């Protein structure tokens, strides 16, 4: 039985397939992978190469918009008031388009439904392409077709002929031996002892599979990080009490020191916090944490994130017991920038308390250096109940509650993080690079050789062919191999007269007329 060489993935070699419209299924033709017609069509839709390219481009456009348009911070689009405030803040920039952009989700692109749909379609496309290709690649790897038709040798994209004086049997053996020396896998043609198939990097195609699977792993890592990850900034009072990490752990973290270093021009040189992590009261790890040197323990990482000031405040209740004793981070700034403020609530009396201190270096805040201002509101109300400036240690008597401003203190902002997606991200990254390397560096090279009699003086004619895609690199490799085989039989080998192609030679296209 003879089969023609055709390549269902090789769309760059259509001439061969088109020349034999009545031919049966090719060796690499896809199997019917899905059970029912309906699902088969869905499957076909997703493994369509066009869909893959279009989806990648759509994702590129989406991501580009994400880079060009102002994006809301995390949590803004889960809070109606914050969302309205954000939309108003960008209205000056986008004018009449603001409503449309907002309705399309373009101010929070990376969590928008449209973006997630594109990512989902891309993931399905990759999955379908990969499952569709795997059987083909495996078939090529394990059971390459070894017997092409004679016509193939006259029509293949890459083909060469050599006339040698050796007998066909001797020539066939010499070619096989030479290809083996060149580390080709050489397979005999069971239908013709003077034909053979040789290839190199038969496994190279699996690199593409690895690269595509890696992309799925990376998408899954993103999802895992978003759904199961922890990332929250904790303001640790420097020299203050340990703070519980939470999230089902018994970990506590404490900042014993913090140092920010600047050069003479005020440019930052270093931020470093000394953190001590304890578990059930015992110190389990401590180190200096810098921007590039996080502390890792128990699946959690502690990153240097920010720093600032806090006000140590103590509140006693009606019975004299301490109901609040914390460092209140001064996270807010007044509109004129002269003062900084922190907020805490007292659940018992239903009070919201603002602690206001002069901003660093400011003398225009109206607050004496070293003092603080307590400003009290009823929770949920904007009406000021009371306001007083107090010196360190001074008490503000607020009915049954006494508020004491103890001192100003530095806080270091530590990002506490647990990210189950991160290891998978690394796995996906390594697989992506490995897959790409194999794909581009170890391209599968296939050659068919047929030796026939009737050469000059009764010798043999060697016919070498390959049906790979048009590719300058492969063309060069093919030419090199043909020349190399010529040298095997030197000095007797001569290039055969250029065989008339079975089809008309391609006319010089418009694009090649400058050549």
């Amino acid at each position, binding site marked *: 039985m003879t089969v023609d060489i055709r390549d269902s*993935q090789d*769309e*760059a*070699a259509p*001439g*061969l397939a*088109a020349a034999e419209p009545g031919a049966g299924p090719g060796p690499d033709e896809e199997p019917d992978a899905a059970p029912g017609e309906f699902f088969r069509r869905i499957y076909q839709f997703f493994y369509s*190469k*066009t869909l893959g*390219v279009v989806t*990648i*481009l759509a994702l590129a456009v989406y*991501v*580009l918009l*994400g*880079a060009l348009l102002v*994006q809301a911070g995390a949590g803004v689009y889960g809070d109606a008031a914050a969302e309205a405030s954000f939309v108003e803040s960008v209205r000056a920039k986008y004018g009449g388009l603001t409503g449309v952009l907002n309705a399309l989700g373009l101010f929070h692109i990376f969590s928008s439904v449209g973006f997630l749909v594109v990512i989902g379609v891309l993931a399905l496309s990759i999955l379908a392409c990969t499952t569709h290709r795997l059987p083909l690649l495996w078939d090529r790897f394990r059971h390459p077709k070894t017997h092409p038709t004679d016509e193939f040798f006259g029509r*293949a*994209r*890459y*083909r060469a002929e050599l006339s040698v004086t050796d007998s066909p049997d001797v020539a066939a053996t010499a070619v096989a031996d030479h290809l083996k020396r060149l580390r080709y896998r050489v397979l005999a043609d069971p239908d013709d002892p003077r034909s053979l198939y040789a290839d190199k990097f038969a496994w190279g195609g699996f690199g593409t599979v690895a690269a595509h699977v890696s992309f799925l792993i990376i998408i899954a890592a*993103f999802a895992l990080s978003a759904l199961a990850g922890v*990332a929250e900034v904790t303001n640790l009072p420097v020299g203050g009490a340990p703070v519980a990490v939470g999230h089902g752990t018994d970990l506590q973290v404490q900042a014993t020191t913090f140092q920010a270093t600047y050069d003479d021009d005020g*440019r930052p*040189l*270093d*931020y470093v916090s000394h953190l001590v992590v304890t578990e059930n009261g015992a110190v389990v790890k401590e180190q200096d944490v*810098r921007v*590039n040197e*996080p502390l890792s323990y128990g699946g959690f*990482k502690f*990153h240097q*994130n920010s720093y600032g000031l806090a006000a140590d405040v103590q509140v006693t209740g009606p019975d004299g017991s301490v109901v609040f004793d914390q460092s209140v981070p001064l996270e807010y700034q007044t509109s004129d920038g002269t003062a900084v403020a922190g907020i805490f609530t007292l659940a018992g009396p239903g009070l919201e308390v603002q602690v206001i201190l002069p901003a660093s270096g400011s003398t225009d805040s109206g607050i004496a250096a070293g003092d603080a201002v307590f400003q009290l509101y009823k929770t949920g109300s904007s009406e000021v109940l009371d306001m007083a400036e107090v010196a360190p240690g001074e008490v503000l008597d607020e009915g049954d509650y006494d508020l004491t401003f103890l001192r100003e203190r530095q806080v270091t902002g530590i990002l506490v*993080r647990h*990210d189950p997606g991160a290891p998978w991200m*690394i796995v996906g*990254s390594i697989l*992506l*690079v490995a897959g*790409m390397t194999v794909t581009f560096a170890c391209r599968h090279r296939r050659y068919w050789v047929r030796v026939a009699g009737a050469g000059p003086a009764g010798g043999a004619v060697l016919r070498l062919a390959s049906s790979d895609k*048009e*590719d*300058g*690199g492969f*063309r060069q490799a*093919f030419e090199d191999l*043909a*020349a190399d085989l010529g040298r095997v039989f030197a000095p007797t080998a001569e*290039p055969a007269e*250029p065989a008339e*192609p079975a*089809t008309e*030679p*391609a006319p010089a*296209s418009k*694009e*090649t*007329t*400058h*050549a």
Partner: protein
Amino acid sequence: MPDPLRLAEFILPAALIVTVIALIADIVILSTRRAPARTREQALVGGPADAASPAPAPRPAKKSGQSGGLAAYATGFTAIAFLLITVYLGVRMIVTGHGPFANQHEFAVSFVWGILLAYLFVEWKLKLRALSVAVLPVAACLTLYAMRLDAGVEPLVPALQNNLLLTLHVGFAILAYGAACVSFGAAVLYLVAPKLRRLKVNLERLDEVGYKAAVVTFPLLTIMILLGALWADTAWGSYWSWDPKETAALVTWLIYGAFLHARVVRGWRGRKSAWLLIIGFAAILFAYFGNNFFGGLHSYA
């Protein structure tokens, strides 16, 4: 003792002048040479099996003695420009103690270095001098841009104080961008060469070089982005933050990914392929210059 940085300031204008001289020499060579001849390869290797396939790429024609001599000068000037840029970057590395990637000025010069390296490699390997007409102007413009930026040496901000990842992450970016510029140059030439009668280049070779350069660009971009993610995971506590700069880098990666898929699985060649490569390089420039208006976590760069 003279300040090495002050002395190095003279190197960039010199590199710019030498680059422009090399470009002029290349233009003269290309506009006066004859069309390349076909080789006998076709006698040995079969031609295309179908009408859609291009003819085999002919080798460059033998040069006349005059243009051959000028070619040596053109290549020599390009190599000198590359060496000058290398010396400049070396001086800055010695003075600063870290890779020359800490600000826009240093990265612009490094970008030029990557472009010249990629171009010289392609010229040496493929003898495709015509690329210089499109690639060297980019290198010259970037050199000029770098000269206009503040070249002062500043200490690394804390986020950049990771010499290994700074060198690897930005180093791969430079190599990727250099290769991308070559693919851009090939694509531009592919589109304009038919309109320039005096520019005799083989379009199929340009198409092939554009593709090959993109094949180099894509893995390098991938490694650059992945190293950036690894670094961000350490320094910022998140391997991906949708920061505008990293988002722009992702756009670039997606465009080159789309190009390779379109080329390999859809058989895109010629003009469509060239336009995608131009868009890809535009995305690279967008990611690079974006620092001027993006803000975000990369705003120090």
